[in-house]
């Protein structure tokens, strides 16, 4: 039996996280990502969930993270800044293309009357 190359797509939340990181650019760190997702989608996510996802994305090589500057609000704890890697960016664009192609022709369904 030959091996079938399985193409995996990003999960819904993973995609959101990656997009939020891309939007934030240099300012992307935990709390900011949560705020961005909350602001854009109205979805309030527990901090633990975001971190699990970040860990997973990092393990897959989609993001890189480093510890950076702190502020008094954080009780002296450093921020975990993340950026999307080339591989991550590729995954996002693959997902985007897949979604767009599936949505092609359905615009009338979604357009508001």
């Amino acid at each position, binding site marked *: 039996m030959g091996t079938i190359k399985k193409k995996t797509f990003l999960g819904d939340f993973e995609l959101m996280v990656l997009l939020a990181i891309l939007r934030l650019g240099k300012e992307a760190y935990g709390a900011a990502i949560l705020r961005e997702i909350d602001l854009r989608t109205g979805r309030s996510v*527990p901090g633990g969930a975001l971190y699990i996802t970040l860990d997973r994305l990092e393990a897959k090589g989609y993001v890189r993270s480093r510890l950076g500057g702190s502020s008094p609000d954080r009780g002296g*704890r450093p921020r975990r800044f993340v950026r999307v890697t080339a591989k991550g960016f590729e995954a996002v664009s693959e997902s985007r293309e897949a979604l767009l192609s599936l949505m092609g022709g359905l615009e009338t369904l979604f357009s508001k009357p």
Partner: protein
Amino acid sequence: MKDWRRLGGRGDPPPLAEALLEAFIGDPKARHGLAGDLREHYAARRRVRPGWACALWYWRQVAYASGRYVWEHRVARFRRWRRLRASGPALNADRGDSLMRTIYQDFRYALRMLRKSPGMAAIAMLALTLGTGLPTIMFSIVNGVLRDLPFDQAERILYLHRTDPLRGRSALPVSQHDFVDWRAQQMSFEGIAGFSTEDVTVSGSDARPLRRNAAFLTAGAFSVLRVQPILGREFALEDEGTAVTPSVIISHAMWVNRFAGDSSVLGRTLVVDGEPRTVIGVMPEGFHFPLNEDLWLPLRLITDGERGEGPSLEMFGRLNDGISMPQARAELNTIADRLAREYPGVSEGLGAGAMPYTEHAMGPQVARGLYTMLAAVTFVLLIACANVANLLLARAVMRSKEVAMRTALGAARGRVVFQFLVEAFVLTAFGGLLGLAVAYLGVELFNREMVSVIGLFWIDIKIDVAVVLFVVGTILAGSLLAGILPAVQASGTKVNEVLKDESRGASGMRLGRFSKALVVGEIALSCALLVVSGLMIKGVLTLRAIDLGMPVEEIVTGEVELPRQTYGPAERLRLFEELEARMEAIPGATGVALMSDLPATGGFAWPVRIEAYAVGAEESLPRVGGMTVTPNFLDVLDARAIEGRGFTAQDRAGSEQVVLVNESFARRFFAQQSPVGRTIQLGQDSWAQPLRTIIGVVPDLYMGSLEEENANGPGVYFPLAQNTHVSMQVMVRSGGDPLSLVSQIRDALEALDPSLALMDVDRVDRLIARETVIFEVFGRLFLFFGLTALFLASVGLYGVMAFSVSQRTREWGVRMALGAKGGDVVRLVLAQGVRQLAVGLGLGLVIAGALSVPMSDIFFQVEPWDRTIFAIIALLLAATGIVASLVPARRATRVDPMEALRYE
């Protein structure tokens, strides 16, 4: 400003939650990032939402994150790994035997083993639940009572006092002159301040007048504590003089209750003991220094009089950095010596001392007593651990084949030991969590009972971080204690011998000396704990058996205290007599009297000089109790004069000075003769009372407090008309519920003077019970502790005996086949049990003796070496122990020899 309360700072999330979060997340990147993010969110929420909601939110976040992390990094990874392994061994080759996976496997194995023997797991867990829960209750109490003051660097706050080494007295108050000199001359302290406490009546504004605890403070007292008013200012040096308008600082509670938390309270007027005072400050919530005060008034130093005269005060100070307590003590003594030389005759021979403030407020024996109790209760944990160790040991014996097999196949000894420890840990951890719940309940119950008695504001008995850490410590120590013996025992066996042994699962390995030693230890510890509990319970029973012989449950009482400034002796008498007359008119009141003290709660002890009763030196005048009463008091208490007459309305200030004595008094000082008609003089020197004639003898009506050695000691009664007091207890007796008369009593008082308050209103029996509630509560607590210990020890003994009997089944069979009778076998088994029992009991009685002495403060009229209790406990344990070994012994006799020989 530094937040003076350690918990609940504004911007910080709950510290325990944060600590948990950090403990659960191993990866530093995730840990720091997440903890910081949560802090950031928390701070943002805190600005718009109430604190509890934010704390709740934070806890939810922590619970979610910890759960997800544990799942993701332990469980899910393991599943993935197993999937990989299932798809082919080669994939797994590089993964090795990582520590995490080893631990995980051991946990799973432990859980599986426990599931396989649910009975044993349940018993062990019950034992450990009690074993961690009960010490945790006691630890919460100790931790809550022996707290430091809730101030910044409170451990540097010392109580400063005079000592009188010649008379062997310590912790004496300081005269105002001394205070001024000490304050000016000392260098060891950042600052020192003086205080004195008093009860005051607060009236003014429109609410009912209230009695409150107040403290008079010298300037800068709050700065010494490092607590500042949340509104206004503290007392300055000018306030110590008489030139400025009288001021007052109020507690947060009083601010909220009396002024509805109005921020414009500063400058308003509060009438304290009839004197209008300006409110100049409000203290933070929860602050009631020195003991439990609600008002602070400036202490006016009166130093123009003769040195050493005038009211004295108590003193505290904050040590300078780098100065130790002995150094400070030495300096104070140097100053004291200098003062003694400067003013000979005033403070000669007096020294000075310093001790931690809370130690002084609590009394030094309390800490010792509490720690001893904690040590005693820890025995429950040790007993529980011994039990579990024995269970595991028994299992280790049964599993010795398995262990030998593992060793033979190359398992390192450490691996085997670790596996046993993990098993013990799993048991203890479950037990500890349940124990925490038990402790929570215990603390709730304890607080409910003790709420009326705790009079120190910083005492706060609750499950806090320290208690949780204690439980964690207990779990770790417990799993080591319970796991290490079985682990070492099992892993140390000689592999060849065990494998050669013909039986299938278990081996012939005996429960060794370890197990016997454990049982001996269990018996000893439970014996000690039971003796201590027994002593306490005997005290409770003694206390309950006291029959006061007075209808105290039919009487309602309350205290009325008249301000000295506005009430002279004549006005006092007039008010009290009018009050009595008005209360007599209350429908339902069957008897009314006024007494200076309640019966059975103690009072002042007067030195007395008695006609025809010679005493040698001035110092050795006998002391007797004294109470001031109105003539009706005998009726209200259901008593009558045994000899002579009681007081009447004709005993006035101008008439003959009279006194009643009680039976003990008559017996002690007049033996066979009648005291009636004799004269006595109370007090001595400057405060000697006029000569008084004894006009009658009354029964003993508990002059002293129940706590005293002799609550029914000698005592005298004065008529109020001849010895006016500023403070009296009203006593109103009713056939029905006496408490229903309270509002009418209040109305009667208000009609006479609306600025007076009735305080500490309750039924007399309940107020008397409040004096001794501490004995009751600790008695009940230790009854529970003791019974738990007895239960655990007997289960332990039974378990070990039963197991060792079953292990020797073959031996019994052989013996019986060779002609041994059932009785011989029973005797053989019993002998082993009795030997352990005897050694354990002997040790236990010695430990009990060592424990009961420091705990004797909490025994109600029971000697720490009460032989009856020691004997009862020894018999009780012996009986339990014999039953526990008799049951397995009888089982041994039922062994069928043929069966036994085939037995594997």
